[in-house]
């Protein structure tokens, strides 16, 4: 690794804060992803029924209905008015992510995230070029296309290919050839486009991004004056276009990460040796 101009991202933070602190949110995030999977798997695996169903629609403890609002939206566009249960479920999910940051779903819940994170890790290890980088807004176009196609075909169109629900359902109910689809995304992110799927194309992420536009929970850079320009946060951030306005904003501008693209993964907090970032509540106060 002599070609590197500086030590790997996060090395400094590891030295100053210790390994555990420098991986705090990464570990919490993996734990959260496992936790949400375990909720669904404890029933079929161990007979301990906590949550039934999948991420598209579920019932927790026989009382709490949850529905993926993007799936519900496509169903509405396709011409079906769902029963109240599904509508309530979608409302609860919408409210939760409107407060917690829509794309928290991507970082803390979505089962595809470990796949694309793994692809990114290997991509960095192999020092591959970043490849095809479609505009970040492409996912919004795809989101629109999925809704239009749902309306035209009268089906919940994105569910015909959605790797998020397919992988989740596959793990719980039976995989079929979903592994091939997941492998496709891994390879795509590895050799075709760095951070390609989650960062540029996935309309589910785009939808949740829109949901979280006015989120209360946000990453902030209150100690941005202490930034020593090591660039580690930019290296680890899956949506690093969101950092600059908060970190490098002129005095008087908000240190909050205001872009709905931010996944609230907290990795920037982990890798910053100067402790510039932290999670904050309140969308206006720093």
């Amino acid at each position, binding site marked *: 690794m002599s070609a590197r101009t500086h030590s790997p991202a996060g090395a400094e933070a590891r030295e100053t804060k210790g390994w555990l602190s420098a991986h705090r949110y990464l570990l919490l995030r993996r734990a959260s992803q496992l936790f949400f999977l375990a909720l669904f798997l404890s029933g079929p695996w161990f007979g301990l029924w906590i949550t039934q169903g999948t991420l598209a629609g579920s019932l927790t403890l026989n009382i709490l209905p949850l529905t993926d609002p993007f799936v519900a939206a496509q169903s509405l566009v396709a011409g079906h008015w769902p029963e109240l249960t599904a509508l309530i479920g979608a409302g609860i999910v919408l409210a939760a992510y409107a407060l917690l940051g829509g794309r928290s779903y991507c970082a803390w819940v979505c089962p595809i995230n470990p796949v694309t994170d793994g692809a990114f890790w290997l991509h960095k290890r192999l020092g591959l070029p970043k490849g095809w980088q479609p505009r970040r807004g492409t996912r919004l176009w795809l989101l629109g296309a999925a809704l239009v196609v749902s309306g035209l075909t009268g089906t919940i169109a994105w569910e015909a290919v959605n790797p998020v629900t397919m992988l989740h359902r596959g793990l719980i109910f*039976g995989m079929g050839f979903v592994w091939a689809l997941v492998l496709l995304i891994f390879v795509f992110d590895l050799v075709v486009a760095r951070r390609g799927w989650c960062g540029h194309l996935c309309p589910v992420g785009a939808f949740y991004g829109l949901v979280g536009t006015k989120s209360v929970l946000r990453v902030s850079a209150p100690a941005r004056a202490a930034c020593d320009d090591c660039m580690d946060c930019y290296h680890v951030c899956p949506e690093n276009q969101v950092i600059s306005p908060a970190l490098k904003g002129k005095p008087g501008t908000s240190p909050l990460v205001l872009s709905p693209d931010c996944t609230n993964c907290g990795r920037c907090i982990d890798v910053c040796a100067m402790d510039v970032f932290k999670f904050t509540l309140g969308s206006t106060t720093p």
Partner: protein
Amino acid sequence: MPMLDTLRSASRRRFLTDTARAAGGCVLAGSALAYLARDARALPADAIRPPGALDEDAFLSACIRCGLCMRGCPYDTLKLAELGIDGAATGTPYFTARDVPCEMCEDIPCVAACPTGALDASLEDIDDAQMGVAVLVDQENCLNFLGLRCDVCYRVCPVIDEAITLKASHNSRSGHHATFAPTVHAEHCTGCGKCEHSCVLPEAAIKVLPVRLARAETADHYRRGWEEKDARGAPLVEGVIDLPDRLPGPGTDNLVAPGGFEPAFRLDGAGQ
């Protein structure tokens, strides 16, 4: 100013090409998606939807593929279609009657579990379900049609004597036995598939088919004269003379040639 204009037109050009590119990509991706989504509509004939399922087209706009109906099913009848393995749209629920038929639970837990109404909650009596219609597809191999008393499909039918009856007729092969033909009455058949599941043949002679395949449809203008006559309680056309029927053989009401006539030739097997 000219420089500003150049900049402005350059950015405008960039905006236009970017937009055109994105729109083109969307049309391409959207077409592929539409192809996949429509392709998913082709439900195989042996894949039966759960009770209360909306028509296939409406079902695909309503089912979010959550699997809660499958969790509700106490007999593990329902499966979720797996990508690239099962023919039904990926993740949608179905069952294969020959493997595990529907047990027709009275409380219909699968319908109760459905959060979206893809399984219609207005189905309150499981006997009103129409998951499909049983059809005796192969009379040549059905044991009952061969003159044996298998009767298994008839005996296992949860709506016995309504959905399936045994229709007795003369066994013309042996000449002195009866044939009991299992006969499905579609208006009572729920399509549960117990008959298909239980058929003793290596490949079932009776199969549950989707309604669209199993049923004919009479033309709207078609009227059955005898039903109309019963409904009216009188002949539909006044003044029609009911002519006597001409029947062969002696001792009939053949008024034109009293005493009847002998047919000029004999049909094999007739009148043994």
